């Protein structure tokens, strides 16, 4: 097979040595294929793309391209392959792990112009959208039909569905309604090798290997998505939330255990520790119990009768688990007020601290008390404060490390604190990222979570889709050398790292 031979040759070449990008050739090629308005190359134009939601890492890209359709996108990707130019795909740029951090010698391809809802079929409850469509825009378009798109990452007003697919985004409702991977039925993808493939689709169980779910969460390293088919759900008639206070984090954890063991799958189940409560209450005045060591928010949704039945059950379970105070939202306004603090946790952190670092690890919930206790010790070790919000139903922790980037050494201390948190997550049987992705932020921690054989398997998958290794290079999969270097640093865990040694 001719193309197979060509691909093998390309792979071998890529493995030998990275080829220097031929930027002039690349610019000439895309200049022929795209209107000039789609190519941003002046410094003032590319400045806006120098970072994503993880602002600690910045790199001004030499060029940004905003193709208008799939034909133009394919032309750009072909030019990248022909001229060895690395590609950084970008949705709305809200990634919290540096997934869209530019490559110093590469092109950023933004999907901002892929912003159309191609089909919204209310009867069959299916929508087909382009990757640049905002997450919330899908639910807004579906709302007149009584439908919505379930995954709701906290950035949903801004983040794009293409980015959601790349990161397998979650949200507060994913225990009941699943992550992006559970709500996407099909993808149209241009692979790194240049093929256009339709994966999955409206019919269940597409034949062959499950490439659809492999591509979800692949962080823009296997291909670029040009169409996403999602399932829509009937909007619940009613939602109510139970807010309960607990005298200890263990007690709150026990309440979560009881709720789930009783067969209730709440629409949302969130825990805030006292630090988080004290951080947000002055800001939102939600009426949170400032004396509680932890607060649990448990939401039930469905038909009116169904919600009443479930709320009654949850109230009783909270009480038997030792809640010191239990309140049920009596109106939609009150429900939103109870949630306001949880949703504003990051904004509140920004209000009292010049900078904050939002972490994202998952642990088996039974280790919650131990893990939060260890975080307290780490606060002393790194000399920084940390408050915790926790998707309690699925074990996903979001510690917020507060720091001031203008104070010498604090950035490095925050990063070391973050790394220690993630390593602890792995130690107790969890993972270094629940929903934010690896990007460049957690590439070192990949060495902690995975063996060389496992990292090699990831690299093998990458080669199958992107033989030249041009899509989002240097992210997610660390090299052997990188892990060896990190291993050295790993030995010094617990000591303050040397601020003069840059980790990145």
């Amino acid at each position, binding site marked *: 097979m001719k193309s197979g031979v060509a691909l093998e040759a390309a792979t071998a070449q890529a493995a030998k040595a990275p080829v220097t990008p031929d930027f002039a050739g690349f610019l000439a090629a895309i200049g022929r294929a795209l209107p000039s308005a789609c190519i941003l190359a002046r410094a003032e134009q590319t400045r806006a793309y120098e970072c994503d939601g993880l602002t600690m890492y910045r790199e001004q890209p030499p060029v940004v391209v905003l193709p208008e359709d799939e034909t133009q996108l394919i032309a750009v990707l072909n030019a990248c392959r022909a001229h060895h130019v690395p590609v950084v795909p970008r949705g709305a740029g809200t990634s919290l792990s540096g997934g869209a951090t530019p490559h110093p010698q590469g092109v950023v391809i933004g999907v901002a112009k892929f912003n159309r809802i191609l089909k919204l079929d209310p*009867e*069959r*409850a299916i929508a087909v959208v382009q990757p640049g469509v905002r997450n919330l825009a899908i639910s807004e378009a579906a709302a007149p039909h009584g*439908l919505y798109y379930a995954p709701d990452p906290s950035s949903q007003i801004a983040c794009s569905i293409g980015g959601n697919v790349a990161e*397998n985004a979650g949200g507060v409702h*994913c225990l009941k309604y699943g*992550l992006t*991977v*559970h709500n996407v039925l099909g993808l149209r993808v241009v692979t790194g090798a240049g*093929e*256009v493939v*339709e994966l999955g689709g*409206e*019919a*269940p*169980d*597409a*034949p*062959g*290997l*499950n*490439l659809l*779910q*492999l591509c979800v*969460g*692949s962080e823009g390293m296997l291909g670029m998505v040009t169409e996403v088919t999602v399932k829509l759900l*009937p909007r*619940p008639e009613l939602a109510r939330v139970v807010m309960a206070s607990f005298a200890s984090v263990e007690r709150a954890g026990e309440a979560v*255990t*009881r709720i789930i*063991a009783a*067969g209730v799958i709440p629409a949302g189940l969130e825990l805030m520790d006292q630090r988080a409560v004290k951080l947000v209450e002055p800001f939102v005045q939600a009426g949170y119990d400032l004396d509680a060591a932890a607060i649990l928010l448990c939401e039930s949704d*469905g*038909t009116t*009768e*169904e919600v009443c039945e*479930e709320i009654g059950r949850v109230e009783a379970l909270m009480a038997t688990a030792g809640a010191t105070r239990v309140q049920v939202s009596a109106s939609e306004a009150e429900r939103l007020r109870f949630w306001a603090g949880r949703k504003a946790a990051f904004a509140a952190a920004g209000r009292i601290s010049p900078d904050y670092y939002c972490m994202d690890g998952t*642990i*088996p*919930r039974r280790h919650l008390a131990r893990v939060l206790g260890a975080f307290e010790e780490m606060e002393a070790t790194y000399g920084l404060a940390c408050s915790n919000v926790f*998707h309690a139903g699925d*074990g*996903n922790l979001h510690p917020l490390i507060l720091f001031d980037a203008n104070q010498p050494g604090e950035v490095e201390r925050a990063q070391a604190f973050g790394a220690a948190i993630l390593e602890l997550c792995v130690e107790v049987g*969890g*993972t*270094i*990222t*629940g929903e*934010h992705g690896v990007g460049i932020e957690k590439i070192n921690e990949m060495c902690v*979570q995975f063996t060389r*054989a*496992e990292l090699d*398997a*990831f690299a*093998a*998958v*990458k*080669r*199958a*889709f992107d033989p030249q290794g041009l899509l989002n290079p240097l992210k997610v999969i660390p090299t052997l050398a990188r892990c060896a270097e990190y291993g050295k640093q790993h030995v010094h865990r617990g000591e303050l790292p040397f601020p003069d040694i840059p980790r990145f």
Partner: protein
Amino acid sequence: MEPVLSRFGEQVAGARAAGRKLVIRGGGTRLFYGEPLPEDDSFEWLDLSAYRGVVAYEPSELVLTARAGTPLAEIEALLDREGQMLAFEPPRFGAGDTLGGCIATGLAGPRRLAAGPVSDYVLGTRLMRGDGEVMHFGGEVMKNVAGYDLSRLLVGSLGVLGPVLEVSLKVMPKPRSEVTLVLALDEAEALRRCVQWRSQPIPVSATAWLPDGSGGQLSVRLSGNASAVREGVEKLGGGVLDAATACAFWLGLRDQTHDFFNQRPLWRVTLPPGAPSLGIGRELHEWQGCLRWLTGMHAPDALRAKVRKLGGWASRYRHDGTSDASPVFHPPAPAVIRVQQRLKQQLDPDGVFSPHRLYPDF
């Protein structure tokens, strides 16, 4: 490494060194599924059935981890004691059915459309590669986006990427209430209603339509909180089936012991919601019309062309005793096959594992 894994490792590495092929099996109840095995001795078995047992089960974390050779019956009995279940309702083809076979084939039962595919519930896996080394992907937590999702890739892979040794699954509470309704409807009307329910808050967990003398019969199972099921019953109408009969009926579909499944050849066609009747012979519908079991002799290419035009896929599900040169599975588009082929080459470069089970040519 556990002695039994060391033995597997030695067999795998030995086969690779000698250029032999391995076909992976557990209870051997699902070998009918996929491309037929060669009748010569060009391969040897890698039998995982000895590697069994539930490794961990935390009901309150909704996670169970078990070895590939663990009987499905054992897992579901354990879950049942805690009021939990495998939401995808996997079929059982015999006492020897194992978790490994369930994952390798990726076949789900009547609840598939409501609950999602088998892969939606796979959180982590252990996989052996060609040199015998064991790799671990995913884990035991619900949310995990570290690295590519190889665990979900392995679901339905029929062993072509290597033996899955252990699996962590998300499990779900059993519904508090379940009622089956029976409505006398012809095919077109049954399909129309099934689609309508998609956009309504009705807790449909399974449907089945069968033709009869006067048109047909649609059975609908509602599952959930008592109040939601009660409301659903009021909205849908029809007759309520008694619990024992209903249970036997859905088990007959799940395990494919219903008479309909005895016919050969048996085609398995999946279609988008709302697809019309195929109008080519006797059909049994499940999954709100998205799964159509089809009997009778059909020219594979013509059937597949017709089904593809409607956005679906047709596989020759039960082909024992019938001879046909066409592939068992509906061939995907050439570009999709190319990517799959490269993935196979990358992850099993020596071509040791279950060759030709998924596609005749690799």
